[in-house]
Structure formats: C-alpha cells, structure tokens
C-alpha cells in the first residue's frame, strides 16, 4: 500500500481525534491507541455535550406534559426519532422504536413476532457467525415453541455461501435473522442477496446491524429488510440506547412487548387498548438523554460522511493486515473478500489473554476472547482470538504500535 492511497482519504484524522476527549487519556503513561471499537466506540464532544445540555436545560418526562421543560424534552426526543428515521431512510417515524441496543431489539422480535408467528415445526435461519444475541433468543423461543434453529455454515475464510442459504430456506422457514457485519471476523455478508431470496419465499428478514451501522451507510428501504437493529454505543452514541427499525405493516401486526405507560391508549381492569406505532413498543420512561445523544452521534457521522469513513477504514484494514502478517506465527481469522475494518488473529503458542495484557501496557487497547461468538471459535478450533477493530479516529501509526507490541510479545514468549 503506497502513501499515495493514504493521502487520498478525505478524512482530517487530527481534527476528528480532537473531537474525542477520551483519546487524551494516557494509560500507563502512553498514548492511547484505542482499537476496541467493535466492542464500543468512543464519544465525540458533541454527543457528550448533548447529554450534558439535556440534563442542565431540558430534563423532563415526555409526551404527557404541558409545561415548558416537558415540551422541550418531548421535542428533543421526537426530534431524535426523526433524525434516526432520516439516517436509516425509514419511511416514517412509526418505524423507529427506541430500545437499549441490538440485544433488546432482537429479544423484542423474538418475544413478539416470534411468539405470535413461529410455532412447532417452524424454522428460523441464522448463520454460524452470529453474535450470541442473535442465537440465544431463538434458542429460548425454540425450546418454548418446538421450532428449530437452522444454521448457515461458514467457510474457512469466514463467509457464507448463497447456495447454502438457498438450500436451507424452505416452506417451514418463518424468519431469517442474520448479521450484516460479523463482529469477530469482520465479514460483510451479502445481506441484500439473502433478503431477496428470503422475500421470494415471503419470509421476513431481521438484520443485526450492530456492526454494520458504524461502518457503512444503511438504507433500510434499499436493503428491503423487515427489521434492522442499531446499538447506539457502537455508533459513537451513549450507552443504553439503540434502535429497532421495523416495517410499519409488520410492526402493526405484532403484539406488544412490555406493558406500561405510553404504550397504551386506555387502561381499565375490564380491558386495555394499545397505543399506535411506535409507542406501542415503548413502554415506560425511555432513555431520553440517550436518544438525544444518539441523534447527535448520527449527525456527527453524517458530517464526516460514510464515504470518507469507509475509505479511511479500508486503508487501515489493508495496511494493518499486511503488517500483521509479517509477525511470526500470526494467523488472521476471518479472511473474507468483503471485510469491515475488524481483524481477528491468533499467535502460535501464545494465548490471546497474554497478548491482550501485554499490548495494553503499551497503551494499545484490543479485545481478546470469544467476542460473544463461541460458535465461530468452535468452527476454527480456537478458544479465543485477539481482535483489533478500527474506526475513523484510528491511524496507521496506531496500527504500527500494535504490530510493534505484538513483536515484543513474540520475542518474550519465544
């Protein structure tokens, strides 16, 4: 990779880095190289400030109030919903449900769509690279309802084959639930093709967007998916907030999930009427500050632009991949053709935990473990990997520092 390529990325990384206060932290007296963005992203100052301002100037409960602060808070909250709607290009605010994150989003679908539409003998199709949050809710449902979880296998490069999807879908399949970008392998799945196949059989598709949203523009109408999930904390937003997008018709026909305030039209002991979308699925006081912070994060991402982010990340991916391969006995797990800037690797004779602790003391933050994808570990016959995941504020220098630290690990362990 020549410097030429590097220079053509339109990102002003220094300016971006200065937007993220935490990057000034000095773990063990060293510069922080935060390469754990797949676990959670850091927050730009504008997001932190939006949360701060909310509590200092707008805080109130929403929807039912007629006073000054309540009107401010409601406007900010519903304004955030509009921002999310535009960000994902949903048709309407009715399709945007605020949840805690991807895990809650998938469980909501399992409890509502799942329990009303999927029964004995039915099948749900996932892939072998799913995060636990896209496995366990279906296992619980299957145990309760006598349905079956079918699994699209992955190849040695960490890819699914469209032929397998085609073969595994049948008249018993009631839902396809698949990750767009794998958090442990980096694989970008051909999700549009999967959706098209499923839809040709009238099967709805849930897309786990926890890892795709941080890396690429997602247009839910273009994708055509029935459900899409976002984890705010992975998208430079606050913790405890996320989005479930659902097509209006499909949400409309689902029973509610949580019962409580705001999701009802009227309550009496003789019978209760549910509210309209999206409120039907938002019982109780929501994470108001979280939604406002998330909307701010989306605006921030838009201000940088996905094209620039993507170019920058792909540069880092190519650069780091090349450099990592120079290390003795290092093997990259996940070598799909279409990858996001996530690199999992193992090193001969050195356990990922030792790698993690070691590079941490050099100021380099990576994640080690099974990344909540144990079936992937099983498939590759390893207990864990080390994972570096890059985002817009990362640099080639940080990749170099990782590589250096790994060389030291190699030396130490012989």
């Amino acid at each position, binding site marked *: 990779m020549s410097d030429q390529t590097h220079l053509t990325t339109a990102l002003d990384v220094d300016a971006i880095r200065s937007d993220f206060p935490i990057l000034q932290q000095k773990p063990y007296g060293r510069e922080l190289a935060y390469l754990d963005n797949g676990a959670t992203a850091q927050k730009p100052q504008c997001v932190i400030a939006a949360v701060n301002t909310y509590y200092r100037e707008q805080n109130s409960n929403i929807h039912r109030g007629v006073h000054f602060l309540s009107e401010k808070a409601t406007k900010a909250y519903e304004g955030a919903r509009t921002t999310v709607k535009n960000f994902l290009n949903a048709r309407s605010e009715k399709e945007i449900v605020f949840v805690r994150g991807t895990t809650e989003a998938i469980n909501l679908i399992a409890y509502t769509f799942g329990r009303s539409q999927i029964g004995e003998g039915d099948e749900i199709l996932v892939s072998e690279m799913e995060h636990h949050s896209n496995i366990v809710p279906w296992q619980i449902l299957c145990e309760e309802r006598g349905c079956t979880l079918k699994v699209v296998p992955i190849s040695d490069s960490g890819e699914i084959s469209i032929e397998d999807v085609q073969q595994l879908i049948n008249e018993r399949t009631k839902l396809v639930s698949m990750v767009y970008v794998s958090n442990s392998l980096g694989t970008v799945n051909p999700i549009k093709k999967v959706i098209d196949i499923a839809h040709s059989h009238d099967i709805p598709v849930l897309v786990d967007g926890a890892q795709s949203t941080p890396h690429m523009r997602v247009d839910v109408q273009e994708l055509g998916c029935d459900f899409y999930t976002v984890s705010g904390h992975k998208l430079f937003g606050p913790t405890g907030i996320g989005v479930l997008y659902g097509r209006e018709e499909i949400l409309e026909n689902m029973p509610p999930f949580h019962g409580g305030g705001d999701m009802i039209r009227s309550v009496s002991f003789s019978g209760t009427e549910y509210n309209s979308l999206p409120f039907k699925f938002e019982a109780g006081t929501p994470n108001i500050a979280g939604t406002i912070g998330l909307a701010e994060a989306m605006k921030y991402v838009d201000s940088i632009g996905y094209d620039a982010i993507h170019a920058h990340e792909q540069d880092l991916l190519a650069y780091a991949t090349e450099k990592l391969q120079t290390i003795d006995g290092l093997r990259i797990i996940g070598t799909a053709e279409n990858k996001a800037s996530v690199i999992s690797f193992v090193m001969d*004779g*050195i*356990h990922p*935990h*030792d790698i993690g*602790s070691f590079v941490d*003391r050099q100021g380099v933050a990576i994640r*080690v473990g099974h990344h909540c994808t144990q079936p992937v570990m099983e498939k590759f016959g390893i207990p864990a990997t080390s994972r570096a995941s890059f985002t817009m504020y990362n640099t080639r220098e940080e990749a170099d520092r990782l590589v250096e630290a790994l060389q030291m690990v190699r030396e*130490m362990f*012989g």
Partner: protein
Amino acid sequence: MNDEIKELYQQVILDHNKNPRNFGTPDSCSHDANGHNPLCGDTVHVYLTVNNGVIEDAHFKGAGCAISKASASIMTDIVRGKSVEEAKKLFEAFHKLIVDDSIEPDVDVYGKLAVFAGVREFPSRVKCASLAWHTMQAAIDNTNEVTTE
C-alpha cells in the same frame, strides 16, 4: 517494555508456560475436578491422589493463558507431599498474595509462589492465576465442576 509486564511475565512463569510440569492425565487418582473460566475460555482439569490426608500426587491438563498454565504447573509441584490442610492454607496465602498490594512477596515465605505477586497489578488476570487453585479445592471437596467469574 512496561515494568509491570516484566513483573507479570517473569522468566519462571514463561518457563512453566512453555514446559508445564505434571501435565497430563495420570493413570489413577483419588480426586479430580474440572475448572473453567468462561470469560477467556481457560479450562483446567486437576487430578489428585490423596492418601491419609496427604496429597501424594498432583497433575493437571488443560488449555489456557500463560498465567493459568504456569499457576497450575507450579501449584501441582508445590502441593505434592503437603497435607490437604496445608494445601488449603497455601491457597489462602496465594490468593492474598495476588490481590493484596500491601503484602511483601517474600520468597522465604511464599517460595516459588512469590513470582505471582505481579498479578495484583492486573485485576482482570487474577482469575487466570487462581483457576487451578479453585479447581484443586473443588477436587478435594468433591465438587466436580467449578467456574470462576
């Protein structure tokens, strides 16, 4: 290189990691248990031959990080010939050593275990160091399965 890292990965530990002692399944044993650290995937199986309250033999098998392997290796070395009571006391002492900043890692007191004092600077690794010990305890107590979290 960071000093605390050097403290953690002392030569003794790297050596036991590379060439673990008492590694493998013995032909026979009186007590055994399986230990598992679900967060990092470390597993260790400890086999003991206890006679008249004395640990006559100790082995282990498993996969894990350097700290957990070295810990199992050194532990099985050290408890051999000790009474069950002594082994339990050693575990207590060991546990204090790896969590308590104020304890001097005196080689006269702790013997080979002293090399694990560096773990105290790595809170997320305490469980790696103590897994083998928890598992030995489980073997003695006839609890067949133990997990740390």
